[in-house]
């Protein structure tokens, strides 16, 4: 079932990739930059290998090839997959929800 979470309940977003020091770190800084540009404070962005995403993570942005792995690590998390590093739809979903006090939701 597609999960969702109130943006107000999100204080940390995880970016997951395979090794945890390459693309996830790059995507982390891209999202931090977008949050800063949007004037959003109080939301941390952390990166992790998909198999090490904390079980209590609430929102996870992950490459779609690693979505299943990340889901096993954090079964309760809202999972936002992407396939193209040049265009990550999760950024707009997250920022839209945070700025409108809406919900961050998985695609149905």
């Amino acid at each position, binding site marked *: 079932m597609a999960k969702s979470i109130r943006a107000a309940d999100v204080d940390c977003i995880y970016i997951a990739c395979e090794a*945890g*020091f390459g693309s996830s*770190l*790059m995507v982390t*800084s891209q999202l931090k930059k977008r949050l*800063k540009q949007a004037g959003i*404070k109080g939301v941390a962005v*952390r990166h992790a290998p998909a198999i090490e995403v904390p079980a209590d993570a609430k929102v996870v942005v992950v490459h779609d090839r690693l979505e299943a792995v990340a889901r096993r690590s954090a079964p309760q998390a809202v999972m936002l997959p992407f396939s193209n*590093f040049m265009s990550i739809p999760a950024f707009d979903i997250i920022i839209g929800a945070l700025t409108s006090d809406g919900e961050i939701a998985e695609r149905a």
Partner: protein
Amino acid sequence: MPEGPEGRSLVSPDLVRLGLPSTDRRSAVLLAGELLVSAGCVRPEYVDGMLAREGTMSTYLGNGVAMPHGDFGARDQVLRMGICVLQYPDGIVWGPDELATLVVGLAATEEEHITVLMNLAEVIEDEATARLLATTDDVAVIVERLTRPVEDLDDDPE
């Protein structure tokens, strides 16, 4: 020029190779791996992790940039941070619909290479810069563009 620990430049000009003839992905990853091994950044086993990683999931980022690095299991084979850059002006077929002109080999454990990753993020978003890096014959251009200072975003509330 931003420097890593112990005053080393984040991208050493010694680890930049320009104008390479097109080859296949495996050969490019092996060359990137050899450069990192010879520079003392990784143990030879790390290169196996680089090949394994491409096998499970391409490291192509977009706009002609691929970023091979070891897989999760190869993290222990990193001795110190290192970044090498291979330029293939005519491109390498990296995967379906993926033509790599800039291959950036990574060896990293900590977040000391974040400056280079952030600069790469800008390159994959900007075609003009991607084209410049794919065609320049000046190593200094590559080093400068990948190591230029970036905005400090380290404002984690914790």
